[in-house]
């Protein structure tokens, strides 16, 4: 695949790629731009190769995710959150329209699967491919993430309704 073909693929998915980069960087705009730039560089320098053009979006999302993990690790921003972490316990008040803050309360893997499926309209199988985990594990993250996010949304709405 030559440079202009790669350029075309990246341009087609640029908006989604930036939004995914933001989501992987805890919605930090500057970091998301850096991560995206580095991801593109990796691709155009041939460090990451696309074998199947039908999986371009999955492949691009996977590169962005791993680049973001590296950058967050370098910046010391990686916080290990166990799967038993209870997001329902909200220490501070969150605005019901602060969707980013709400989704950020989910454990990392659950958040990523939920965003890929509900926001980016991907399948659980595609999510599993991006996260490089088995489909069964991805489904578990999906089910748990869905349950926790529903509880979170309800909790935030109750807080807002009765807090006023």
């Amino acid at each position, binding site marked *: 695949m030559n440079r202009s073909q790669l350029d075309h693929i*990246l*341009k087609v998915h*640029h*908006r989604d790629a*930036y*939004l995914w980069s*933001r989501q992987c960087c805890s919605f930090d705009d500057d970091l998301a*731009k850096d991560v*995206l*730039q580095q991801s*593109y*560089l990796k691709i*155009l*320098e041939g460090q990451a190769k696309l074998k199947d053009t039908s999986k371009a979006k999955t492949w691009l999302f996977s590169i962005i995710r791993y680049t973001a993990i590296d950058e967050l690790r370098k910046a010391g921003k990686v916080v290990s959150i166990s799967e038993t972490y209870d997001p329902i316990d909200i220490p501070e008040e969150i605005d019901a*329209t602060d*969707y*980013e803050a*709400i*989704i950020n309360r989910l454990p990392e893997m659950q958040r990523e699967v*939920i965003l890929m499926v*509900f*926001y980016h309209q991907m399948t659980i199988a595609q999510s599993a491919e991006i996260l490089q985990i088995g489909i069964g594990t991805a489904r578990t993250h999906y089910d748990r993430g*869905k349950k926790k*996010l*529903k509880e979170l*949304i*309800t909790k935030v709405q109750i807080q807002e309704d009765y807090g006023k």
Partner: protein
Amino acid sequence: MENDEQLERFFDQMKKQDEQLDIPAFPEVKTRKFNLWIPAGIAASLALLGLIMQEPQPLPEGPNEVLIITLQEGDNNEQEFIIEEKAYLDVWESPTASLLTDY
């Protein structure tokens, strides 16, 4: 997808909010790969420029006159110097030529 309306509504609203985001322009990514054509092109251009800029130097002109000093035996068997001025050398003898004949 049962009972997912709440989540779908949540993400629809999130997407609407994201429509207000400034999406950065697609960056002009310059790869860091070393391109051999660039230094080769510069070297070739410099060489060509050097050839064009180099002016041919005029050849040094020969002396108008040649001063010939010879040592000859005079009438009184005395050695004397003869100094001649000529435009060119018609005879040239190696200073060591006598060695070939004398020894």
